[in-house]
């Protein structure tokens, strides 16, 4: 029988993968994908807690909002990355390093 713990474990795994992706990737799009993984890990948590927790729809509603927000963030994020590509001709975060100190 699959219970709450299984879902939480999967969510933790996805969260760890997302964090690992964010910390190791040098490509801006790769980092954005890592952020999506983190958001989806949180979504799994919300749904699992809502399924096994109190009989309200709070968790599901949060998940829907987070999916929407992830899309909004991706829109702004991709526009910024596109701007970076036009300016620097690269989307590597190290190639765009001009501000230091």
């Amino acid at each position: 029988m699959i219970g709450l713990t299984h879902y939480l474990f999967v969510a933790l795994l996805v969260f760890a993968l997302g964090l690992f992706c964010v910390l190791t990737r040098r490509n801006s799009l790769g980092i954005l994908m890592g952020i999506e993984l983190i958001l989806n890990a949180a979504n799994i948590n919300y749904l699992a807690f809502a399924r096994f927790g109190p009989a309200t729809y709070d968790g599901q509603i949060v998940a829907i909002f987070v999916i929407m927000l992830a899309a909004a963030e991706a829109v702004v994020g991709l526009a910024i990355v596109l701007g970076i590509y036009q300016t620097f001709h690269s989307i590597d975060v190290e190639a765009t390093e001009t501000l230091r100190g």
Partner: protein
Amino acid sequence: MDLANVDSLSFIAPEIVLTVTMLAVFVLDRAVRAAERIGDAVRGGLALALVAMVWVPHELDGWLFARQLVHDPFAAFFEVLFALAAMATVWMSMGSAEVRRMQQGEYYGLLLAATIGACFMAASANLLMAYLSLELLSICSYALAGFVRHDRGSSEAALKYLLYGGVASGVMLFGLSWLFGLCGSLDLVEIHAALVAGSVPPATLTIALVLILAGLGFKISMVPFHMWAPDVYAGAPVPVAAFLSVASKAAGFALLVRVLYPTMSMPAGGGAWDVLGGVEWPQLLAVLAAVTMTFGNLAALRQQRLKRMLAYSGVAHAGYLLMGLVVLDDTGLEAMLFYLIAYYFMNFGAFAVVGILHDHAGSDDLGAYRGLARRGGMLPAVAMAAFLFSLIGVPPFVGFFAKLFLFAAVVQQELYTLAVIGVLNSVISVGYYFSVLRMMFVEPPAADAGVVETTWHARTLHVVLLVGTCALGVAAGPILGFARYSLQFFSG
């Protein structure tokens, strides 16, 4: 009171005014092409929103929109602060050559949307609302930071802000999901009730809180989540950097106080608070406050560019402000609110002067300030001196009283180590603030440096902020009384 959707509308009149202004700006941008008109329209809208903030009935506290938002003096305090911050930002933007080259409609529209997000953030009564409003503020800020097209610094600032911000808010969302699971509700008051009942395992709760601190620490630029601040401030247009340093930071503090105080602690009588759920966050915050202010001040010492210096100074000030949260007492929170008012005047002032020089010399290099007082820039130089003295904490400026109240609250709770670290930090900060003063007043102007001309528009802003910085120090008592009044949380 617990109001449903339609009844709540009159209580969010300020936000409605801001939204209508935002939509009007987009239309105006198409209809009229004069930049000043749009700036004036935004200022009018903000003034109307400020009137609405006063007009909204303050004697009634309660929940709005079926417990999504809360209407209480604490939220009202921050709403006014954010509207004033947006007002100063618009004022600064209208005189800024940097902003004049941009798409006016989008710029002011995003600024207003960010302000609305900040207002809702301070008023959120629910984890979902808190997260949504934080993202509204963040996503608009990412776009604002990168608003200068084909500019390397600005593009890079936007990218860094986006990536750091996305990770921080994602981590915070994961922490919030654990808080939701542990307490069985998204409602802050019900979370409080679950913590009072004591059925929540402290170890898991601590982890959730640390994850939430990552997101909020990012907003207030707390070490170790401060890395974005210097790069973003350096690359973003000057008015945007000023907005981020004051409004964004204040919004982070508003939500942090809401989560830590009425939710994760309970009043213990006489203004003191007790921690709930067995999480020792005051100790954690005390260490973070000490590290944040020390790191910020030491890093600022090495800076040769004013925007970066002010960014690190902002990190240091986040450390001072955090001290107000550590003391677990109303005096600390009052001092923190007072500090935010003071910070508004002195930091916006400093950025306003940086904006003048940025337009004149095209850079915010320390060298550009050489002999400023002797080449036409007497008012900016004198104003800057006042703002910097206030940031150091020299009497009779408002910054002195802000620090005084904060340190007094810390000493009153016998946290002597923290108080000593704070005072030592104020001494360190003299080093970098004075290098700017020396450059402006002592060093002779470079031979090829032109006369700095200021418009009456910029001078008005300088004078207003200068008067605030000087006069609020004299009127410290009533302002502190106002902060005390604002420290009321509605919890049913």
